[in-house]
């Protein structure tokens, strides 16, 4: 099993190396094939590992080599294969394969295709390192690695200033979050003298509650950065500057869930701090709601999906906060299916319109896109929570656990569900129904995408439909949750009566239907409505402006002040000032050098006279 698990990680690295060193010789198609095959190999290796795991049923640590060893800090490089890591690996490699395949079509004709696949493979490698790591520091390697790949891929169209800035923004926001992860590691190491997961888990109970809370809050900060939660969520919409497959892979299905993964991974520490978990839940709930409100007012199709992603991850964080780790993972997987589907679908739409992303200039596309349309329809219904699609079950699992623990958060979650159905329906209607508004700006006929792009759509649509099977509540046991439970510290006990469960499910459906109907009635025959698209929402609650005013501009002026005033007029002026004073005074002193030998001799004699007088006085006294 060890060797196969190692292959999971090595395949994408191999693909990366192949593309890197043969980049100039590979055609763009060749690069795509190499990269896709590598990731597919990784997927197969994951399947084999999964199969082997089902036989042994024990988590395995694979020690590779000693990475860092300094004093008491011993960090090995190793893989930790447990249900959580395996589950993550399965959907990461699976979806990555599909998106690689899709990219071969979407990116065809781009001049930097090799580089694109290079980054993409490196990303998959980093993501796998992140989830398979057996210690926090190695997770951090993957954590930063995916961040760097995200930077490259967001600023992939680097000629555009907006893309370059978006990449920078993504990286910086992630770095702020990284402070949290670093701080968490510092605290853990300082108290437990280890960063290895298994040791942390066994020693976690020795942590004091305060320390545990601090660690949890630090981890939360890390998660807010990577998983785009309040207060660090506003980089994700900007990240849509990247190519659409990137948005689907990194900014919807995989990387952004890393924060949730980290929190789940550290569940034994989370278990020690009720306050910490409460904070997580509140942050998650708020993010889910705020992002959903923003999504209702966006005009760019990818921005709607981006905020929808933020909102959905908010749900996952919320679930983690209330201890429903299984539900969080369930939603994460389901979300990976349907959000990848939606993004790829939107990518297909954009592709068909040669880069148009504004929904006001779409409409009536259903008949031009015979495959994209039905698959997108499935995606839309799934995320809206229509039974019996995966979204319904996953969201239902989260909301059910919520109801048991906190009614206020449950209400917020339900409200968000309504909003979700609403904005997704708006998106769907604006894109596929109504007049063909794209005619004004787009000349030509929209065309369906090639098979490499539509095949992933079909597969993802199927997964979205069937994903609910992973964890149906009334099967004799929750399959996914049972499978995962060895990885969790404590599983939330959701012991509701089946009657209550059914009424909660009905409430979910009602919420979805309210959202759907409202959106249909409001948006069926219009494409703009200032009253419904509040600029406050469209401007992301002025979040960017607030940061700019409180942090960005003060720092910019501080930098300018340091560079011009402190650096030049204070420090350097002090140095150069003393230098010039020294020069002036020595110019004055040099006047004493008259050039007359006899003057100098006289000075000597007078000096001797002084000494003699001193001696005489000393002898005389």
């Amino acid at each position, binding site marked *: 099993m060890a060797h196969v698990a190692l292959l999971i990680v090595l395949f994408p690295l191999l693909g990366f190396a192949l593309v890197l060193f043969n980049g100039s010789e590979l055609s763009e198609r060749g690069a795509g094939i190499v990269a896709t095959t590598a990731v597919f190999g990784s997927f197969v290796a994951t399947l084999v590992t999964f199969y082997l795991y089902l036989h042994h049923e024990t988590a395995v640590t694979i020690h590779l080599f000693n990475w*860092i060893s300094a004093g008491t800090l011993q960090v090995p490089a190793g893989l930790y294969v447990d249900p959580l890591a395996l589950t993550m690996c399965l959907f990461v490699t699976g979806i990555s394969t599909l998106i690689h395949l899709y990219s071969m079509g979407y990116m065809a004709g781009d001049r930097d295709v090799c580089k694109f696949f290079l980054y993409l493979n490196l990303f998959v490698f980093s993501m796998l390192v992140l989830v398979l790591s057996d210690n926090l520091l190695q997770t951090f390697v993957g954590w930063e690695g995916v961040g760097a790949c995200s930077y490259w891929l967001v600023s992939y169209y*680097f*000629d555009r200033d907006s893309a370059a800035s978006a990449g*920078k923004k993504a*990286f910086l926001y992630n770095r702020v979050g990284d402070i949290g992860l670093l701080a968490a590691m510092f605290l853990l190491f300082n108290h437990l003298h280890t960063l290895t997961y298994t040791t942390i888990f066994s020693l976690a109970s020795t942590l004091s509650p305060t320390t545990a809370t601090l660690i949890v809050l630090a981890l939360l900060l890390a998660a807010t950065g990577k998983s785009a939660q309040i207060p660090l969520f506003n980089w994700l919409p900007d990240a849509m500057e990247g190519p659409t497959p990137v948005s689907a892979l990194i900014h919807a299905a995989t990387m952004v869930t890393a924060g949730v993964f980290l929190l789940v991974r550290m569940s034994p520490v989370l278990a020690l701090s009720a306050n910490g978990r409460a904070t997580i839940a509140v942050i998650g709930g708020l993010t889910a709601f705020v992002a959903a409100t923003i999504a209702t007012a966006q005009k760019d199709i990818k921005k709607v999906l981006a905020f929808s992603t933020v909102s959905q991850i908010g749900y996952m964080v919320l679930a983690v906060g209330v201890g429903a780790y299984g539900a969080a993972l369930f939603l994460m997987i389901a979300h990976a299916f349907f959000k990848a589907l939606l993004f790829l679908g939107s990518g297909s739409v954009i592709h068909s319109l040669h880069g148009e992303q504004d929904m006001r200039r779409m409409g009536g596309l259903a008949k031009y896109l015979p495959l994209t349309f039905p698959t997108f329809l499935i995606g839309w219904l799934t995320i809206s929570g229509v039974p019996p699609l995966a979204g319904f079950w996953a969201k239902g699992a989260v909301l059910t656990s919520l109801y048991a623990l906190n009614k206020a958060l449950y209400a917020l979650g339900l409200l968000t569900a309504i909003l979700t159905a609403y904005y997704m329906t708006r998106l769907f209607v604006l894109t596929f129904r109504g007049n063909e508004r794209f005619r004004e700006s787009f000349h030509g006929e929209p065309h369906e995408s090639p098979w490499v792009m539509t095949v992933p759509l079909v597969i993802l649509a199927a997964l979205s439909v069937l994903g609910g099977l992973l964890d149906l509540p009334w099967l004799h046991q929750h399959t996914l949750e049972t499978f995962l439970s060895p990885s969790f510290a404590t599983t939330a006990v959701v012991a509701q009566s089946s009657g209550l469960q059914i009424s909660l499910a009905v409430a979910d459906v009602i919420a979805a239907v309210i959202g759907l109907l409202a959106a249909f009635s409001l948006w069926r025959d219009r494409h703009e409505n200032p009253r419904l698209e509040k600029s406050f929402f469209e401007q992301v609650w002025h979040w960017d402006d607030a940061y700019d005013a409180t942090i960005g501009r003060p720092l910019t002026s501080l930098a300018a002040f340091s560079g011009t005033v402190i650096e030049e007029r204070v420090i350097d002026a002090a140095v150069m000032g003393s230098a010039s004073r020294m020069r002036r005074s020595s110019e004055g002193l040099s006047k004493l050098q008259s050039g007359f030998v006899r003057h100098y001799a006289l000075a000597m004699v007078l000096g001797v006279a002084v000494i003699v007088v001193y001696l005489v006085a000393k002898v005389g006294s």
Partner: protein
Amino acid sequence: MMHSSVWLSLLLLLPFVGAAVALVLRRRQGAAYLVAVVTSAIEVALSLFVAFSYKSTVAGAQGFDFAVRHVLSNPLGLAYDLAVDGISIWLVVLTAVTVLFALLGARDRRDEGSYVAWQLLLLGCSMGCFLAHDLLEFFIFFDLILLPCYFMLTRWGGLQGRAAAMKFFLYTFLGSAFMLVAIIYLGVTHVHEFGGALTFAYGAIGQTTTSHVVSIWLFAGFAVAFAVKAPIWPLHTWSPSTYEQAPAAAGVEMSALLSKLGTYGLLRFAVGLLPAAQSTVRPVMLTLAIISILYGALVACTAKNLRTFIAYSSLSQMGFITLGVMSGSVIGTQGAVFLMLNHGLITIGIFLLVGYLERRRANVTIAELGGLQRPMPVYAGIFTLLMLATMGLPGLSGFVGEYLILIGTFGTHAWWALAATLGVVASAAYWLWAYQRSFHGAVDATNAELPDVSSRERAAVVPMVVLIVVLGVFPGPVLSRISTAVTALVTHVSPSGVSK
């Protein structure tokens, strides 16, 4: 069993011989250049040999190996005394590597014979500093280094090279004067305490006891000299002008190598010899380190050209190293030594790259760059990697050092470590700022035609890239050799820091 002492003497003397030969051959430029390259290549090989055969377990030597000592003058306390331990050995390697790659990557054909002779002298003097096991000997080499720097700046530097050289010279010379006072005081105190002939031997001086107040003053004397060299805020203002005016090779050597002398000296002498002062000076030095980190990051954002940008970036990075050096923890100090090596390697790469750009377009004013990734993708790729290494991206070598420094410092001085962690964000901010302005965006007509790095240029930079990746993934061989020496030093200074 201790190693034969001949290797260190070879390491030390070979560059001087090479410099003499290069000087003799200076009219035949190619020959002088060849001599220089061969000399420094042999130095690299020798230093690697010494590094890998170094044994940390020589009895009673506290991690020192290859020791050799001859007293040259009893009344002056002057001695020829060489030894390496895990701290200095990697800096010795770095020294050799830096000069070799500066020669390879930044060839300058104006009066080349003299130029390479100066570079070899610089190599010899830096070797002397890192090999010296005697304070006076160290001081002599430390000040001798100024000569090659000064002449390289004035004769091969930019238009304001003369002014920059004067500023650099006076700054460092004045700084080292304070150190000389401290060294003499220590030597004389040792004679008073133990009797015998005047000596400045490192081991002997280490036994000298100084009172708390006196050791603070002595520390200040050392710290001024080393803070100038590193540089540490607020004694850094020589560095932007010097980095801006230095010729490419000298720039590589000064940024990658000389800055390490500051932090190395700080660790070896100011920290290692004055345990009594630590409790008082640590908070001060740690604060200065953090100011360096954040201030360097801030001012880097206002830098007009890439060279001053690197100067401020170095200020920030050296702040990290200072933090580790002053942390009083084994892990942090080990990280600092590791980062010294790696910051050196990274800076060699970056400065060479900037030099390449200067060959193509005369100046590196950031405002005139933009979109370079389009015409020069390989260049941009290498630059990105070096940038990420500086920013401390895990998997690259810069991270290991930075991380060890932070986690070690957290164990002893948690708040300072947290403040320094802000530098992680700050470094990303200013690097990405510079990168975006230089490499992203639309490319204008003049820049669009720039050729990408040639294979010859690539040959000088790619080894750095490889080393950075390899050391990021397998830091073990380096870290393990650092360990004993650092543990001995930190145990000597603050027994409580050992477990941290």
